[in-house]
């Protein structure tokens, strides 16, 4: 009973036929051997795994090795002039004092640090001079040190800020018997050991570090370079450096007093960097396999399947047509940004009253357990760092444990239901991705007559939203095949192109809350829910997030509006009043996370709500952004707003939108060998949306 004996990642989440693909693999098994295959994924483990091996250059057995992960962020200045006696100073806001030795500034063999007891200390070789007074967590302290390598004389001091707490300054001095020579490289928030490994990571904020030595008077100003990896020295020597593993910038500093909330207005309030011992941007694994995708490869969901002991480890990949290549009329838009936001989700494996929101026991499989055994693979944006602050970065440069057809019936694994159904129906389609849409904008969507979302397209950048808006503005047809979509803003930081940034600002259904004063991304964009930023999903898709519950699905009941001639094509051949009272996710097509029509949030007045779900359980609760203060009566047995609305509307340019409003919807498509009313209804919509005949807006008075 064990997890996969091998893990890996790719250099990109999508590729084109003919592209060279690089696979980075770490073999956990002692034998160091593994098998690899390229597989096309046609259906997930639930309801039943369907995969086809695609002959490729990686098929077969390979020798591999264990590859370490250099987790933990820090900053480094690689070059320094010759140094003699030095004076160091900085402001520190520790978040885990007393949790191991944490380096603040390392200059060659000299280390200004927080010792294991949580006190400021100066160390040289194996000797340490400590103030012996633990720093207070989440409070600013000035820490200073002096050191003369000629004599070994050393002095260190910590001083709290003025305030009402009982903190007092503390200092210590002494003489090192084996004085180390201060020299490059200089590291902030970590130490590089004699083998080159970076260790003793600091968790917390650092601001305004300085180094003086003879004519050297370096002063690093972290308010400069937000949105980049640069750290700038204001002195004439310009001893600039760079950050590693994406520590959080645009965070409040010692000067922040609540008078500024947008770091661009006064960066001096944001002169700190928040480092974490568990930040990870780049696992930096060596390439293990390189191969070329077949030139005639069909677009679709694929994976590199790695197999050693235990279950296989799937490394998911979207293959889309090359720009300019022949395309199907229909595209499935894989939500790779949402997959990334959920990647390496640890929270459900940690203690807490998780079931109160889920309505059932949390579940995991042995691949998830492997993730729990390896914290160095980083966490998801649903987790918190070890110091309790939310994880706001998610990078593709590490193994991603959720882009697979197995495990939790969610995102990637559930989206394969759509692929399975399209294959069964014989409907030609391409698969494209969020990441490609981020790169290419509406040009990616424009060739398609219709675009389908997958089950849960939750995380969107402004550029992604604009691409869909532009597509609809040109008469495109969009099928929103899920729930809780277009919900959180994410951004792509040019300095970290393989990472998304997320700030869970204001409110929303969220795993953690962004800190006050930090609602603006490092890109300068205001974070949070799109409905709070002025682009509610209702205005785009006709519906928006209203409730969630994870115990059981329910069904839709047709409304009077479903008899409107405008909706006749949707229900062609369907006499049933009840739609989707079956399915492989909780037994109903309306479930998990559901959306509803709301004119106040911008749902188009001419939209038809053709069916609504009902009879949800106590586990389904209104989302808290709908509630101003706590109240009873918010569950699915009592609140009539707890429902998924199925909505259709035409757009001005001859296009249309159809929205299902439920994550579980796609899990009902295959019921009874695809002979069911969800399948029929969906096929009806696909066929009409692929028909070039333009949709026309309904006539109303004055039009």
């Amino acid at each position, binding site marked *: 009973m064990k997890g996969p004996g091998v893990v890996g990642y790719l250099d990109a989440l999508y590729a084109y036929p003919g592209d060279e693909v690089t696979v980075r693999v770490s073999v956990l098994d002692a034998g160091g051997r593994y098998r690899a295959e390229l597989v096309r994924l046609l259906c997930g483990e639930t309801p039943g795994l369907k995969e086809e091996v695609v002959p490729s250059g990686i098929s077969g057995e390979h020798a591999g090795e264990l590859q370490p992960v250099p987790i933990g962020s820090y900053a480094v200045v690689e070059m320094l002039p010759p140094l003699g006696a030095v004076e160091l100073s900085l402001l520190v806001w520790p978040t885990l004092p007393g949790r191991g030795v944490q380096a603040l500034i390392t200059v060659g063999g000299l280390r200004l640090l927080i010792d294991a007891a949580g006190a400021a200390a100066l160390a040289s070789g194996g000797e340490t001079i400590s103030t012996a007074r633990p720093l207070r967590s989440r409070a600013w302290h000035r820490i200073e040190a002096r050191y003369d390598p000629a004599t070994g004389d050393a002095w260190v001091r910590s001083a709290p800020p003025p305030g009402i707490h009982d903190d007092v300054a503390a200092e210590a001095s002494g003489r090192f018997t084996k004085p180390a020579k201060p020299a490059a490289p200089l590291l902030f928030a970590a130490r590089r050991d004699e083998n080159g490994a970076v260790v003793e990571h600091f968790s917390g904020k650092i601001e305004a570090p300085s180094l003086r030595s003879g004519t050297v008077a370096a002063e690093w100003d972290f308010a400069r370079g937000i949105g980049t990896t640069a750290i700038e020295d204001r002195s004439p020597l310009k001893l600039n450096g760079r950050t590693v593993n994406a520590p959080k910038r645009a965070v409040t500093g010692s000067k922040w007093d609540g008078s500024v909330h947008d770091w661009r207005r006064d960066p001096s309030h944001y002169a700190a960097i928040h480092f974490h011992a568990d930040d990870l941007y780049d696992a930096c694994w060596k390439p293990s396999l390189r191969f070329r995708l077949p030139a005639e490869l069909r677009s679709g969901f694929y994976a590199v399947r790695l197999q050693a002991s235990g279950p296989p480890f799937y490394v998911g990949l979207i293959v889309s047509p090359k720009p300019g290549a022949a395309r199907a009329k229909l595209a499935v838009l894989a939500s790779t940004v949402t997959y990334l936001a959920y990647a390496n989700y640890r929270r459900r494996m940690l*203690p807490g009253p998780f079931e*109160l929101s889920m309505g059932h026991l949390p*579940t995991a499989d042995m691949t998830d357990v492997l993730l729990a055994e390896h914290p160095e693979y980083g966490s998801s944006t649903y987790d918190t760092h070890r110091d309790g602050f939310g994880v706001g970065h998610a990078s593709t440069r590490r193994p991603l444990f959720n882009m697979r057809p197995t495990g939790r019936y969610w995102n990637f694994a559930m989206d394969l239901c759509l692929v399975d159904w399209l294959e069964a129906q014989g409907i030609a389609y391409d698969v494209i991705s969020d990441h490609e849409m981020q790169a290419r904008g509406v040009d990616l969507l424009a060739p398609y007559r219709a675009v389908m979302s997958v089950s849960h397209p939750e995380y969107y950048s402004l550029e992604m939203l604009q691409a869909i808006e532009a597509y609809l503005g040109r008469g495109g047809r969009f099928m929103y095949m899920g729930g809780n979509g277009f919900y959180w803003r994410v951004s792509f930081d040019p300095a970290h192109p393989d990472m998304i940034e997320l700030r869970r600002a204001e409110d929303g259904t969220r795993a953690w809350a962004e800190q006050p004063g930090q609602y603006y991304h490092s890109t300068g964009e205001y974070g949070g829910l799109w409905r709070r930023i002025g682009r509610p999903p209702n205005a785009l898709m006709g519906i928006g997030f209203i409730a969630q519950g994870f115990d059981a699905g329910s069904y839709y009941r047709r409304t009077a509006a479903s008899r409107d001639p405008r909706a006749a094509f949707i229900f062609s051949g369907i006499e049933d009043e009840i739609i989707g009272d079956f399915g492989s996710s909780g037994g109903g097509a309306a479930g998990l996370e559901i959306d509803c029509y709301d004119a106040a949030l911008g749902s188009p007045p001419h939209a038809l709500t053709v069916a609504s779900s009902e009879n949800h359980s106590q586990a389904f609760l209104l989302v808290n952004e709908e509630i101003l203060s706590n109240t009873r009566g918010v569950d699915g047995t009592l609140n009539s707003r707890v429902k998924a609305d199925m909505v259709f509307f035409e757009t001005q340019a001859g296009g249309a939108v159809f929205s299902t409003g439920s994550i579980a919807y796609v899990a009902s498509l295959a019921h009874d060998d695809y002979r069911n009313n969800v399948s029929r209804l969906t096929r009806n919509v696909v066929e009409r949306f692929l028909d070039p005949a333009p949709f026309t807006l309904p006539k109303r008075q004055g039009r």
Partner: protein
Amino acid sequence: MAASNVDPKRLDLAAEFRARPFGRHSLELQAILDTMRRAENCQNLILVSIAPGRWVLGERQPDFQPPRLFEEEVFTSLEAGEWAAFGRRWRALTGEELKLP
């Protein structure tokens, strides 16, 4: 911490859960489930799939440690695992074994 409202005599509510672990429950059963899921002495259970269609209970651990698995009992459905967890919690909150016909 709210007092336990799990009455060991209400086997009818246990039977209701066994018959339908997911979905709508009676208000009395829902109150028991809320108590069980909030109770600190039996809160941190998890169901782990050890192979397709095979599940074991586990206990979630603090400090980012992996769950501890109870490998001696294997379930072939989520429902069976939920029922086993219900029985453990019943015992923890009432001090009595849960025995249904």
